[in-house]
């Protein structure tokens, strides 16, 4: 078991017949099971002193009536990595201080869509309409593996993409819940990815996540078992002795992971909608993640450009030394930052073929 507590399991009538309901009841036998209310207020979260934290303890099983799969919209003027997102689970059991979901989702509960068949059909429709490869993942609005030991969602997703080689599935996590995955034979078009950070950030700002050492050990186990891996240094955070912190994580990676098995590593600096500031201050205080010089650009708060440049360059250098040849890219940055950090745009990197593929 992963250890993330669930006090309530709410289910809509349409989702009641899903085998996921029985798995959830078995995984959290102490949880109250009830019919889901349409609005989150129906679950009393409005009266909670911390609705974000409270919402993480309720799992809602629903039928998704909207789209499952969408292209990450990116931001105008910034270089896009052509990622696709599966909105299968919305909400996360891990409580990171910087998490965008604190302000992004109106429903604070963890919502799991059970109509996998519809998702599969939608994926085929997208494949039919798209010539190139599709790199997609479930880690945009949730942690891909947080409930994997309980609900086994990854095995259903892996089964879905196994017969669709044009799709690369990324399962992105801050947990070490990979036992179910490692029980199966590696699949060529599946990548297990870990969000990494400096140890101090993981320890202080990522409540409920595995430590950096644990995550890297899990990655090492995945590589040993023949799986491809990826890493996301996102969000990079400027904090006391941050250079040493990121070098330490890079050094741990160097000891544990063969660079040839690393599909990609992304770097993204801390960014958040201005309205998130109050939520973060209220829930985590003003002295932590919000320490630093931020500027509005264009609709998100980011570190001022010279600070980001130094941050990216330092971490890039550490990772290139630790994992030579592993493809690196920047998330949500413009051409000038790419040139400043890498000396070129992704398409113009001759020895970085995987990046060419991602950014084509």
């Amino acid at each position, binding site marked *: 078991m992963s250890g993330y507590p669930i006090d309530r399991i709410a289910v809509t009538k349409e989702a009641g017949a899903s085998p996921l309901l029985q798995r959830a009841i078995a995984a959290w036998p102490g949880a109250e099971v009830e019919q889901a209310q349409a609005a989150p*207020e129906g679950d009393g979260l*409005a*009266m*909670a*002193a*911390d*609705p974000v934290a409270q919402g993480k303890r309720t799992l809602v099983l629903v039928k998704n009536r909207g789209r499952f799969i969408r292209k990450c919209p990116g931001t105008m*003027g910034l270089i896009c990595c052509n990622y696709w997102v599966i909105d299968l689970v919305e909400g996360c059991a891990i409580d990171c201080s910087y998490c965008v979901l604190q302000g992004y989702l109106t429903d604070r509960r963890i919502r799991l869509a059970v109509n996998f068949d519809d998702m599969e059909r939608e994926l085929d429709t997208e494949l039919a309409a798209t010539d190139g490869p599709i790199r997609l993942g479930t880690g945009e609005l949730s942690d891909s593996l947080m409930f994997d030991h309980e609900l086994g969602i990854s095995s259903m997703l892996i089964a879905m993409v196994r017969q669709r080689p044009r799709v690369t599935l990324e399962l992105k996590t801050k947990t070490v819940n990979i036992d179910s995955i490692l029980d199966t034979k590696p699949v060529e078009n599946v990548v297990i990815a870990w969000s990494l950070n400096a140890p101090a950030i993981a320890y202080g700002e990522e409540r409920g996540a595995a430590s950096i050492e644990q995550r890297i050990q899990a990655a090492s186990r995945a590589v040993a078992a023949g799986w491809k891996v990826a890493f996301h240094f996102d969000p990079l955070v400027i904090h006391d002795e941050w250079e040493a912190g990121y070098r330490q994580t890079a050094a741990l990676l160097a000891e544990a992971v063969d660079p040839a098995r690393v599909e990609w590593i992304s770097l993204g600096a801390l960014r958040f909608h201005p*309205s998130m500031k*109050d939520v973060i*201050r*209220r829930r985590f205080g*003003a*002295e932590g993640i*919000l*320490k*630093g*010089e931020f*500027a*509005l*650009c*264009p609709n998100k708060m*980011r570190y*001022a*450009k*010279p*600070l980001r440049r130094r941050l990216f360059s330092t971490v890039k250098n550490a990772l290139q030394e630790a994992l030579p040849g592993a493809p690196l890219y920047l998330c949500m940055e*413009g*051409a*000038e930052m790419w040139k400043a950090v890498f000396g070129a745009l992704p398409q113009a990197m001759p020895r970085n073929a995987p990046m060419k593929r991602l950014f084509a």
Partner: protein
Amino acid sequence: MNLLAGARAMEARPVTLADIIPDPRFHCSFPHDISALDASVARRGVINPVWLIPSDGKYDLICGFRRYRAATKAAQEKMPALILEGADEYTLLLMQAEENSHTRGLNLLEKAMLIRSAHASFGKTPEQVIDTLFPAIGLERSMVMYNAISQVAEYGPYTQALVASSGMGAKQAAVLAQFEKEERELAAEWITDHRLGLNQCVQAFEALLDIRVNQGLSASEVMDEMEKAAAQNWDATRRTDVIFNTLIKKSKPALASMEYDFDDAVAALTLPPQVRIRPPKNFEGRHIELTIRADRAESMSAAIAALGKVERGGLEKLFKWI
């Protein structure tokens, strides 16, 4: 809600002002700027009756505090009143809150004072306040909102006055909670003295907080430093502009440094004053803006000619961060 708040009787008649005692439990008019009402009452008297409840041979005022003050100021002997007997007092609080909310709107401090009164004077729990008072004053049911607003009632007088007069909303006022009481009061007094508008007011608090968090300086230290940045003999508007801009720059040293560099590079081009060159906001963006502001063809022609003489190397310095 029962219109009469369960009152056994309701009577409308003029009441002598001397017989009316304001009941602080129902007071929710902050600040007391009622100059427009003063003039109206002095001219025509009070038109809409205030609400009273009988109390030991006199009357407690529960709705109409501003009208009462205006009538008192105009030395009027009587004012029209609606006298409610046997009404539920908490329901009356809700009714007058709703009445004020709809007729003139309540500022954040007034909402905070109503919450405090419902809690402290009427013994209501936070959940009861949220269920009953919040809908009456147009707030969504939320414990987060309850906590955010109710703390405004505990702030000092300068901070409260600033919240009320600037029209701060709950989200804008959230930054105030990050200051210790004394520091918050000093900052509020300083910001009030400089007559900053709402947005500048919030930005100033944000800047003071950022400087404390990132540079370890207290608000007092920063305010002293800012006061020295502007000469005492400057007019108030100029002093405020300089102080505010210096404060914002101090809170963002990396950006300020880029701006100084950029301004130096522009100055080195020795362009005429009608030419203005600006970087993208916060240096995020791909374009530099060049503007010629001219009221005559000669002036524009001179600007264009000057631009034509600028060397490429000088321009390239402007694009260092773009």
